């Protein structure tokens, strides 16, 4: 016991020695042990738990930014309104589409494909590709949003290329806004998946792949039966990080379409912003934010299960 206390101050050790045996000692010890973490705890409570608790409270009030003398507690009204609100349901649907397209299909699959291809590529190609892809990821969200806005807009690069190929051009941000912003998110976020998967693929022992090769397994079979099961954990982690990040994408969409035209690219974060700050209904907006949190945790639960089960 005393030996394990080496790190503590001499004063404390005497106290422990004197009162050992009585039941006050462990409690006091717990308290003194808690002392070093207290500053961190206070800061966490102050800057993390505090605002979250305040947000959760606001979500149950009808607080408005303007046009209201006093706010009052309204229970679950905001949540009831949300589920009856077509615009909210539209936003949930678009959020799921956006997340599925850009995170699960786009970033994740493309990232894995890139990582697998880069394993076989020569070193200069690997460096070059890696560099380009990571650049997209390093760019600040707003800059990336603006670049892709310039790419997709009517007078933009994409239409210039299409014109040159004599293919029909159109205003992408207007005709297919959710696809355009999904593509933008893939463009920006693939690098992260690629890095995660590169690391995971490097961890697979060469002998196993070679053994499978000797047994006559082709490329696809090796991928399916060896590689994927062995990087299962990385897939889970990567999907979770990707999805949670994609769920909360705001700047990219805001810069490109502002959720428009109409509300055809209005995902939950944009809907939340519109309700809270443009329509001044802070209470309702915060309730939507909490619901977004629920959507996020549902995804996390699924992925956590994926991480836990053994092959």
């Amino acid at each position, binding site marked *: 016991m005393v030996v394990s206390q080496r790190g503590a101050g001499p004063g404390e050790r005497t106290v422990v020695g004197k009162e050992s045996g009585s039941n006050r000692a462990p409690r006091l010890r*717990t*308290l003194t*042990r*808690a002392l070093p*973490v*207290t500053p961190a*705890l*206070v800061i966490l*409570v*102050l800057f993390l*738990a*505090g605002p979250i608790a305040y947000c959760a409270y606001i979500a149950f009030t009808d607080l*408005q*930014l*303007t*046009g*209201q*003398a006093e706010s009052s507690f309204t229970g679950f009204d905001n949540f009831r*309104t949300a589920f009856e609100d077509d615009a909210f349901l539209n936003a949930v649907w678009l959020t799921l589409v956006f997340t599925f397209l850009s995170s699960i299909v786009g970033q994740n699959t493309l990232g894995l494909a890139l990582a697998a291809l880069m394993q076989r590529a020569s070193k200069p190609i690997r460096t070059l590709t890696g560099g380009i892809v990571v650049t997209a990821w390093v760019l600040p969200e707003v800059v990336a949003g603006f670049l892709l806005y310039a790419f997709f*807009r*009517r007078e933009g690069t994409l239409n210039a290329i299409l014109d040159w190929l004599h293919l029909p051009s159109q*205003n992408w*941000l*207007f005709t297919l806004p959710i696809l355009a912003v999904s593509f933008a998110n893939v463009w920006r976020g693939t690098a992260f998946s690629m890095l995660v998967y590169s690391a995971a693929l490097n961890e697979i022992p060469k002998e196993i792949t070679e053994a499978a090769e000797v047994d006559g397994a082709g490329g696809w079979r090796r991928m399916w039966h060896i590689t994927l099961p062995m990087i299962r954990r990385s897939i889970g982690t990567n999907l979770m990080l990707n999805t949670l990040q994609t769920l909360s994408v705001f700047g990219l969409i805001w810069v490109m379409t*502002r959720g*428009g*035209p*109409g509300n*055809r690219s209005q995902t939950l974060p944009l809907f939340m912003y519109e309700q809270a*700050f*443009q*329509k*001044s209904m802070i209470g309702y907006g915060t309730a939507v934010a909490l619901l977004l949190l629920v959507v996020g945790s549902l995804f996390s639960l699924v992925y956590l299960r994926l991480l836990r089960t053994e092959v």
Partner: protein
Amino acid sequence: MRPTPTPLLVATLLTATALTACGSGSGSDPDTVEISYKQSTDNSVRVMDKYLADIKTQFEKANPGKKVKLVPIKAPDSEYYTKLQQMLRSPKTAPDLVYEDTFLINSDITSGYLKPLDPYLDKWDDWGQFIDTAKSAAQAEDGKTYGVPDGTDTRGLWFDKGIFKEAGLPADWQPRNWDDILDAARTIKEKVPDVTPMNVYTGKPAGEAATMQGFEMLLYGTATGATESPLYDTGSKKWITGSQGFKDSLQFVETVFKEKLGPDVSDALDPNFATRVRGELLPEGKLGINLDGSWLPQDWLKGSGHEWPEWSEKLGLAYMPTQNGQSPGKVSMSGGWTWAVPSKAANPDMAFEFVKLMQTKANAQKWYIANSGIAVRTDVAEDPAYAKAQPGIEFFTDLVANTHYRPAYPAYPKVSTAIQEAMEGVTTGDSSVTEAAKGYDEELKSVTDNQVIKK
């Protein structure tokens, strides 16, 4: 290690006290008056900045030791209001003087953001010079006045004489009803294909401009009585749903965008489109008809970035007709901005001194002329130097007789957003006129706590 309940509780209490402490006390310097206003998103237009800088110099000269700090907020309209309201919530961030749009002022008064100015106004001789409608613009339902108006505005049709000539339309064009406007736009589309035939502001990105310059200019022309508001029933104090006028106005907007008489939908829904209309499309002769406000020439004055003094030869003015030409024949909407003192201001007295200085006759006149405003002070309005200062002032001042004020009750900003949504629906073609009108009726019920009446 799991934290025991006691430290957690203590920490929470500490947090609560610390957070409350943030709320009280002000960090403001007693000798500095802070002024927030909206800065144009067009970098070459600095009308207000220059004017305020001038008043700041006068103020600091007249009050040695005192300082004026200008805090411009550079944002499109709708974001300016949000930012301002957030600043007004805390004494830490609340400026001493703010520029408030009259459409929002009642809403902000209800929130308790602003200070009643009556004690100051009672002791201020110049207040008698303000016309009554302007005085009531910033008067709340409690009868107190919360803002000093710095001018008003009216709205009408601006048209490009060059484009009209090319299309074979008269230089003294004056439509008598909505169909005349649409016909002119169709003619332009056919004869001068490389210009935008007409512009009506629309959708949420345009904010209040869509509601007022666009929709209400149409809607108020569908009313039969001259004074009736087709939005709000003053008798029952309820908002009006399901009116035919509302649908007809949406129909007009739909026609403009369906027949491609307006700007490209993606341009129309760009939040900075208004800036482009004033800075590019009109001066470059790319826009046939523009339904817009009286203040446009402020961007074209000498020294204001887009210098275009010859605008009065290039552009014609016509009043906006009623739907079928019914009496009184013309429509205009009026709004305007006021200077208001936040209730959490640290130096309200000095702030009002600054307002008084801005509103000496000479300074007020300078401002009306600089921002192409319509005077709300009788002494300025009667001054021939003001009426002659700019072409167009007479035309727009005459419209004051037929102008309407918005029902700027606390719910108005949300009603306005609901109108913008309905407009956006028919602009993009996402919803039909009937669907959009139905959506508005539902939204209206929810934002006004069911204070609606069917007409």
